[in-house]
């Protein structure tokens, strides 16, 4: 029995509030925690079948052109090498998130430096790696490849439906008492999930089983089937544990298709792990952005106009482009508005989703611009934002579903000791360190995506939750278990959640912060149906039933579930879908960031000393895992602010710093003991759980708090991220001179 909900309107009741088990929202340990801490959680490469061969991808070393052929015979003669494979079904780059079909295929057409073009398969990893290095590719470079968004001859698209304008921003800028008109840039970023992409393919006649590291299995299954030209029914993907994703594993990637082709050809299981360097080159990057931001304000700091125009890039033919301005239309007031979006077509590693596509870079730069406006107007940065919170979505003129920005700003300022901040930059010195505070707003759109889940209540009073949803570190195992335990009145250890297997009902997949709400709603709906079946058997009305600790209680009766079930198992499937609610109200999550930095007056080095995030994301399903998500997002923000930057060689576009020695993620010592506060909120428009996504909110503006703190510490305004010491030092020297 499937029960369905389509979110067309706000939900009437807060059903979880009626439940008695008391586990939802609690900071419970992850049920999968012991497996992770003991190394027994099985990631993609951890279940190698006996007799498996290894495949290593070989990559193109030109920016654009053709692969005319490979010298296969020489490599096939090497010890242990079983095959050199060049197959037209191989992928140019990973599929974009939720594509559900194959991306561009055929390794003969090369579109970027690093594109995987061949697979060398051998009996051992060492032999395959040697073969891939030894493989000579006959490459025909195409003249005139364009590798940078600012290069001569670059083709720039200006898609009409991505431009918006209302009122007269130019006039608003002319009439503004205070204004900002600046251009900001962010570099290319890497997701850099700790588990590199890897796939193990195994065929049983015409059925393919793939163990992979993927975020969205129902889409990945369709993409893999489409790439191979086979029926989806013949593809099973397993990803019970995923070593991080951050967008990089949304779509099926080259190693999966190559592994499947090789395993079929050789008749043995084939494992294809990508090296870290291949992940940097052959998986998704976040596009660099150039953002012109205009703010027009009156004497009181109230905005009369906002302009946000972005230039991003991607490979020819890719539909995705970094949605830089996603939150700009509704974050602040202002009747005169311009939104611009241009896409440069370049021969560089494919651009795709990296944690919070859009807001991560767009809100960050908007929040630096707001800091500039605050400084220009002589208004406190917190107060400036408070004055500009709109009463409704100013672009669509629809109400907000719920809105906690003001509370997040006030609460954050209070907790952080914002009143101790000196307005004038460069006033606080601690030895050779200049100390300053900065803040920023956080905002991220909230989404619901179709999801199904099955819940089975066994006659002995244990429950099983099943969906192909993934847990990429997000806490899915924990929160789905908690929702089922709450709804069915069971202790946590009597509920098991199985994920990451396309044989199970299709969930939403992990992406866009919609996993918990979407799949949680599906589990909730299935549990509601089981509760209805229990009521039938127990002979009570739904509102009279209490389930707690494995007992059903109604009126003065209290009976163990097992007794009511009488040897029968109850099974239900929940199905959640988005609906008209999306158009009736603006749904988003909000928060605030506060940071204190020390900037070394001699070297220009910045160290984050303290950081606080205050967030509202509807009902928090697990206070421990939600907090961890926020810590992670804010740390991404520290990386964005200070160290993370991919360098493309201007000659051929190749990624120069394609490893962790040169692409600098924040390390433990770069991150202070960050504080996170989660505000109480319910959003009845979001879903019956009244919960919203929190996985990305922590990065959506975080870097701005750090960069604004650098300004407060030094008076140096960095508009080109990351704020590396050379840029800060140059600013300090300019001031000194």
């Amino acid at each position, binding site marked *: 029995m499937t029960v369905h909900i389509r979110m067309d309107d706000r939900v009437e009741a807060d059903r979880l509030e009626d439940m008695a088990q008391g586990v939802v929202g609690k900071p419970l340990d992850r049920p999968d925690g012991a497996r992770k*801490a003991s190394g027994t959680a099985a990631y993609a490469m951890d279940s190698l079948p006996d007799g498996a061969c290894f495949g290593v991808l070989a990559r193109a070393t030109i920016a654009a052109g053709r692969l005319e052929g490979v010298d296969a015979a020489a490599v096939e003669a090497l010890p242990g090498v079983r095959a050199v494979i060049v197959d037209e079904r191989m992928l140019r780059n990973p599929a974009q998130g939720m594509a559900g079909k194959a991306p561009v295929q055929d390794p003969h057409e090369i579109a970027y430096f690093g594109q995987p073009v061949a697979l060398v398969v051998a009996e051992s*990893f060492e032999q395959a790696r040697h073969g891939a290095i030894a493989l000579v590719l006959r490459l025909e470079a195409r003249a005139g490849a364009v590798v940078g968004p600012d290069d001569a001859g670059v083709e720039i698209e200006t898609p009409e439906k991505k431009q918006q304008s209302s009122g007269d921003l130019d006039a608003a800028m002319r009439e503004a008492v205070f204004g900002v008109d600046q251009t900001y840039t962010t570099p290319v970023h890497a997701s850099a999930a700790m588990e590199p992409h890897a796939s193990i393919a195994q065929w049983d006649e015409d059925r393919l089983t793939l163990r992979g590291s993927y975020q969205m299995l129902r889409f990945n299954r369709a993409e893999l089937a489409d790439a191979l030209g086979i029926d989806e029914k013949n593809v099973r993907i397993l990803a019970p*544990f995923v070593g991080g994703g951050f967008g990089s594993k949304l779509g099926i990637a080259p190693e999966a298709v190559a592994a499947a082709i090789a395993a079929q050809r050789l008749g043995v299981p084939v494992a294809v792990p990508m090296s870290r360097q291949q992940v940097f080159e052959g998986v998704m990057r976040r596009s660099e952005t150039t953002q012109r931001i205009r703010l027009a304000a009156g004497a009181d700091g109230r905005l009369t106009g906002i302009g946000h125009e972005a230039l991003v890039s991607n490979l020819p033919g890719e539909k995705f482009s970094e949605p830089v301005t996603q939150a700009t239309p509704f974050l602040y007031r202002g009747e005169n508005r311009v939104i611009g979006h241009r896409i440069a077509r370049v021969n560089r590693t494919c651009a795709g989703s990296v944690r919070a596509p859009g807001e991560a870079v767009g809100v960050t730069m908007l929040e630096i611009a707001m800091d500039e406006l605050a400084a220009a107007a002589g208004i406190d940065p917190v107060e400036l934002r408070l004055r500009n919170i709109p009463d409704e979505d100013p672009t669509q003129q629809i109400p907000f579903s719920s809105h906690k920005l003001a509370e997040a700003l006030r609460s954050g300022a209070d907790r952080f000791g914002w009143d101790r901040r000196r307005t004038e930059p460069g006033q606080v010195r601690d030895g050779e360190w200049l100390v300053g505070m900065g803040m920023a707003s956080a905002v991220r759109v909230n989404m619901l995506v179709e999801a199904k889940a099955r819940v089975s209540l066994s006659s002995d009073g244990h429950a099983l939750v099943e969906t192909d949803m993934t847990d990429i570190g997000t806490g899915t195992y924990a929160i789905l278990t908690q929702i089922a335990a709450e709804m069915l009145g069971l202790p946590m250890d009597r509920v098991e959640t199985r994920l990451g297997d396309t044989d199970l009902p299709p969930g939403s997949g992990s992406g866009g912060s919609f996993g918990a709400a979407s799949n949680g709603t599906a589990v909730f709906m299935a549990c509601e149906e089981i509760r209805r079946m229990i009521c039938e058997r127990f002979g009570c009305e739904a509102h009279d039933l209490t389930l707690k600790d494995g007992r059903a209680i109604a009126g003065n009766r209290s009976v163990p579930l097992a007794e009511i079930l009488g040897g029968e198992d109850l099974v239900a499937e929940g199905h959640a879908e988005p609906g008209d609610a999306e158009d009736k109200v603006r749904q988003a999550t909000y928060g605030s960031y506060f940071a204190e930095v020390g900037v070394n007056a001699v070297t220009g080095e910045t160290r984050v000393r303290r950081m606080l995030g205050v967030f509202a994301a509807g009902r928090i399903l697990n206070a421990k895992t939600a907090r961890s998500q926020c810590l992670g997002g804010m740390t991404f923000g520290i990386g964005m602010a200070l160290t993370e930057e991919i360098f493309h060689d201007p000659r051929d576009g190749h990624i120069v710093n394609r490893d962790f020695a040169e692409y600098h993620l924040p390390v433990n010592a770069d991150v202070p003991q960050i504080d996170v506060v989660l505000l109480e909120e319910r959003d009845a428009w979001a879903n019956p759980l009244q919960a919203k996504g929190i996985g990305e909110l922590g990065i959506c503006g975080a870097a701005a708090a750090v960069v604004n703190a650098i300004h407060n510490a030094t008076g140096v305004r960095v508009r080109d991220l990351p704020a590396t010491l050379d840029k800060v030092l140059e600013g300090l020297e300019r001031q000194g001179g």
Partner: protein
Amino acid sequence: MRTDLTVNGQSRTIEADPRTTLLDALRHHLKLTGTKKGCDHGQCGACTVIAGGRRINSCLSLACMHDGDEVVTIEGLGTPETLSALQEAFVRHDGFQCGFCTPGQICSATAMLEELQAGWPSHVTADVASAPALTVEEVSERMSGNLCRCSAYPNIVDAIMEIAGRGRA
């Protein structure tokens, strides 16, 4: 070529290509897949194991260099049913999200606490001649060879501080 070593207290023999790293020997030959490969270049720390009592990046070491050595991996520290105090603390403090870097973090932390105990100074030790104190700053610095993109760093530090404060790992 043949390499004899002791892994988690058991004598093991592997017959492997001389190019095989200690990491791949553990994972592919001994099926000890708790140790993870995050970069294969000694840049992330996911492959950290304890060899001869010291934490090392097992990807930077060839298996054949460890003939006769004693190696401890995450599997040797505790099972899901018998977690070490530090492993338990990682669960309690949510010292991970995706869990991929976790075995390396825990092996690293286990050996790190012994280094601290033995008085090894670090970059942040003000006076290298005196015994380093157990501080957030010291722990954070000493754990900086283990990357965590989920960024559980504050929780990792909390977990370690709790156990170190109790004086047992």
